[in-house]
């Protein structure tokens, strides 16, 4: 069973802002860029304690600056693009330690580009952005 968590910053996201500045320089009409770390766990059964366990691993979630949310969907949301390593073999440990019931974990980065009305930018612009956000030599871009 796969369980998917999104970790976002509650403090300003400097990396997202740098992405915004670079994309704007490339001529993409974006007003805001959001970013989330996506952690996908392959677990035995339902792993009822997984959310609490994940929340306690500070490499993944520091409650002073992160928000942790479990997602029902295990694929990118509409308007979102996930960047993953091309050789995306799941790690057998979580942040350097094994977690009972977890067979493997994958980490991706979710990006979303919004225009000045708060809407997702047009698909064509997102595709142009992917040329910057993803190096196809070792990464793949996953879309909804």
């Amino acid at each position: 069973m796969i369980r998917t968590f999104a970790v976002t910053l509650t403090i300003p996201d400097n990396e997202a802002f740098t992405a915004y500045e670079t994309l704007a320089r490339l001529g993409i009409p974006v007003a805001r860029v959001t970013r989330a770390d996506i952690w996908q766990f392959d677990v035995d059964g339902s792993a009822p304690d997984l959310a609490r366990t994940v929340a306690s691993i500070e490499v993944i979630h520091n409650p002073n600056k992160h928000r942790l949310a479990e997602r029902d969907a295990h694929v990118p949301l509409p308007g979102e693009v996930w960047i993953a390593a091309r050789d995306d073999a799941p790690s057998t440990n979580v942040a350097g330690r094994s977690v009972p019931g977890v067979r493997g974990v994958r980490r991706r980065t979710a990006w979303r580009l919004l225009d000045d009305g708060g809407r997702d930018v047009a698909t064509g612009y997102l595709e142009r952005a992917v040329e910057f956000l993803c190096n196809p030599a070792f990464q793949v871009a996953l879309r909804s």
Partner: protein
Amino acid sequence: MKGNQPRVAVLVFPGTNSEDETARALRAAGLDASLVHWSQPETLHAFEAFVLPGGFAYEDRIRAGAVAAHDALMDGVVDAAHDGKFILGICNGAQILAEAGLVPGTGAVRRPTAAFAPNAGGRYQSLHVHMKLALAPERIPILGGIEPGEVVSAWASHGDGRLAAPDDELARIAADHLAFVYCDRAGRPVDAPNGSALGCAGLVNADGNVLAVMPHPERDAWTYQHLDADPHAVRAGTDAALAPSGGIAFFECFARAVLAEAVV
């Protein structure tokens, strides 16, 4: 220009951290090296060659080298590369050149076909290494006078140094762009400590004027920096300990190329 020394720009992005030792090695090799910051792209025309030193440009945000590769300062570097000027990237500079598509240079500008990706195992590494010239010297005009199979001593210090590319691109690299491979002191090939494909420690473009190396020769350019340096001599600051040696030879080759080009 000092006398008729050609000027070399050492490029500094926010987060670059090896500019001073790189400039020092270039000066010791006989070049007039100056730091050029990301806010000074209009000054690049005054330089005959360019060096992108190590560090963490833009904190490696998005990917190592990705943001710097799209910086306005790199517009001038891309133009210079196409004009045949010599461009050397070390560590983070190598990552920037790969992200800019200048090495291996088989695709379009800023459409990377290869990457210095996260190390196998995902850990940052800092260790002394040797790298061996893997192409014929005439294929690397940026390193004038380098000997066939020459071994360069250096320190590797990176978290993203593993050459990664699709199989067809790796075949192209193996055939004509693999400039340096990891080796032992005697030049015998060794497994790349970072899992780099082809044992790659450095890439060169088709014209041989753009070179990217992951290890830092400038951090092994003085006797006191060597792995086997005499600690007593280092502490005493003897002339022998402070003498240039080892990795300085790499910069002397670069200087020879730049000086020869300036004469032409």
